[in-house]
């Protein structure tokens, strides 16, 4: 009797998660998969085949955009790690109590504003008539107005800015758990700042580094708004291609195929990343 009841409770508690997974993730993906393997041969006539995937590999624009998106996302991840690590180390190890909370909150506050507004903020700074351009002219460093927007660097800035919090949070958590005496012991045994960073701090922070990188990489790869707004119309991003297929071209079959290729790409790169850093998914996400 009691075990039946507790079983019922278990399934009731599990239900929202299962509904979420099945209705919003698994079913749409199955549907999209069937759409992606159907080729249009005539009006309302479809055949099953891998033609949509073949289109991707035969058209250089598609797979070049695909590769470009992957490489830019990896660079964004690396840059976010390089920028986020010192910030996280400072928050976790150099500050205490109130200062720590304040700094942490200051990292969080920009995220209370919508991503759209934040991206427009960057546009105000970087555009031809923007603050940076005007400041440079005022200081006499440039003769005329400079356009900082609509290039890869602007996209990178936007992506790093949007995702750095998701790098800092897991890093602060893992660095916080590193006992200060470990670092002191390293110095005491003759270690230098560099060797202690390499042999003690980074190995300890590895789960945080990897989980932060996975999240940042996924966010960059799947980002749509930032590359479009900061990159301009010439800047191609793979999510933009998917959008075009679905909305502009109304070619759902090719769009779905692109969607699955993006899924395969992100899973593949995360898998390689985990293998290279010798971490497991459960170890990095389980914390």
């Amino acid at each position, binding site marked *: 009797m009691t075990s039946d009841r507790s079983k019922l409770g278990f399934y009731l508690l599990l239900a929202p998660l299962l509904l979420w997974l099945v209705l919003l993730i698994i079913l749409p993906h199955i549907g999209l998969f069937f759409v992606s393997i159907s080729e249009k041969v005539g009006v309302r006539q479809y055949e099953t085949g891998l033609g949509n995937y073949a289109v991707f590999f035969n058209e250089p624009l598609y797979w070049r955009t695909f590769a470009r998106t992957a490489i830019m996302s990896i660079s964004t991840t690396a840059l976010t790690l390089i920028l986020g690590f010192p910030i996280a180390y400072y928050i976790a190890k150099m500050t205490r109590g109130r200062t720590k909370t304040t700094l942490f909150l200051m990292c969080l506050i920009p995220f209370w504003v919508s991503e759209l507004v934040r991206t427009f903020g960057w546009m105000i700074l970087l555009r031809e008539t923007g603050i940076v351009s005007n400041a440079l002219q005022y200081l006499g460093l440039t003769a005329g107005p400079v356009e900082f927007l609509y290039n890869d660097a602007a996209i990178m800035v936007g992506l790093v800015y949007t995702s750095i919090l998701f790098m800092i949070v897991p890093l602060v958590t893992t660095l916080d758990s590193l*006992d200060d*005496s*470990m670092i*002191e*012991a*390293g*110095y*005491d*045994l*003759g*270690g*230098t700042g560099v*060797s202690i960073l390499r*042999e*003690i701090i980074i*190995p*300890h922070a590895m789960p945080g580094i990897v989980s932060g990188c996975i999240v940042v990489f996924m966010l960059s790869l799947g980002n749509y708004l930032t590359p479009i707004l900061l990159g301009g119309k010439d800047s191609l991003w793979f999510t933009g291609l998917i959008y075009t297929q679905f909305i502009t071209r109304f070619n759902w079959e090719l769009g779905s195929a692109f969607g699955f290729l993006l899924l395969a790409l992100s899973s593949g790169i995360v898998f390689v990343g985990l293998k290279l850093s010798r971490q497991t998914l459960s170890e990095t996400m389980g914390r």
Partner: protein
Amino acid sequence: MPATPDLQCIELTKDFSDFRAVDQVSFDVPPGSFFSILGPSGCGKTTLLRMIAGFQFPTSGDLKIKGKSMIGVGPNKRPVSMVFQHLALFPMMNIGENVGFGLRQRGVNKSEIKQRVERVLDRVGLPGITERQVSQLSGGQKQRVAIARCMVLEPDVLLLDEPLGALDLKLREHMKIELKSLQSAFNTTFVYITHDQSEALVMSDKIAVMNKGRFDQIGTARELYYDPNSAFVAGFVGDANRFEGKITAVNGDAVTMITDNGSHLKARTITERVTEGQHVQIFIRPEAIQLTLEAVGGADEYMIESVLFNGANSLAILRDPATGDLLNVTLPQTGAFLGLGKGDRVHARWEPEQARCYPGEGR
């Protein structure tokens, strides 16, 4: 001329923003000796040790290791190593890598590192564990690995920051003996800080008792125990009955005191002359008190308040029926006192030489 001391502190002082943690401490530690700094928590001993290790810099004074001043020298450039309170073994490395860490930093080549790591692990009695992980070791083994990790660098001075604190009682007793024998085997100077007097008494060649940032007394375990030069040392090192009161009579260094409750006690003054009417404290060790069942000359009658059985260290708490003062007495293990229980009457006396009188009141 005596050999240069391994470690020499000259009027070492450390001020924090609102208080002075270490106050003009001076001492020498001769080569190859086991030196302990004993004090209650918050007395500044950890700050002192961290200054020797180089994690904190003194406000004033000098600190010399083998005659060389260490002011302005970073912790990674000093010929000292430290065993941390929680050992701080690196969990991301195996035992061999842990012990070899310091040698790697010095750029020693790989085959030599391997040899020296194996040799030092052998010396601490843990041969062939280089491939194991830190989590696979027991508390005592971790302790020895932490010492090996320092000793492999052949430091001039090894600092130990209460490393036995986290161990259980049996292992702690065992490690005390082991630490002492490791120290004599390596013949390295150990500077050991602790709040546990029995650790300090058992292991040390010399002990400094630290209180409120100052050294109250430096001496051998015997000197501190039998000849404490201040009320703090008398109360902190070993157990003692403590009475407060006023001097009623002075005769040379023999004095008589009356406690606030009205007991008359005879004692001997140690450091300064005292005068009649002055406030003093008297300390009597529990084992200095002789217990008898029958009344003998000079013994007062007491009532047993309770008996605390603890094997050879059993204590009886006696109450003076007239004044209510309490007295802790070691129970002699001769069998004559086996049957004693609460409410029984006994007689107790002590030689006035064994009761030590210090001026001042309170702690």
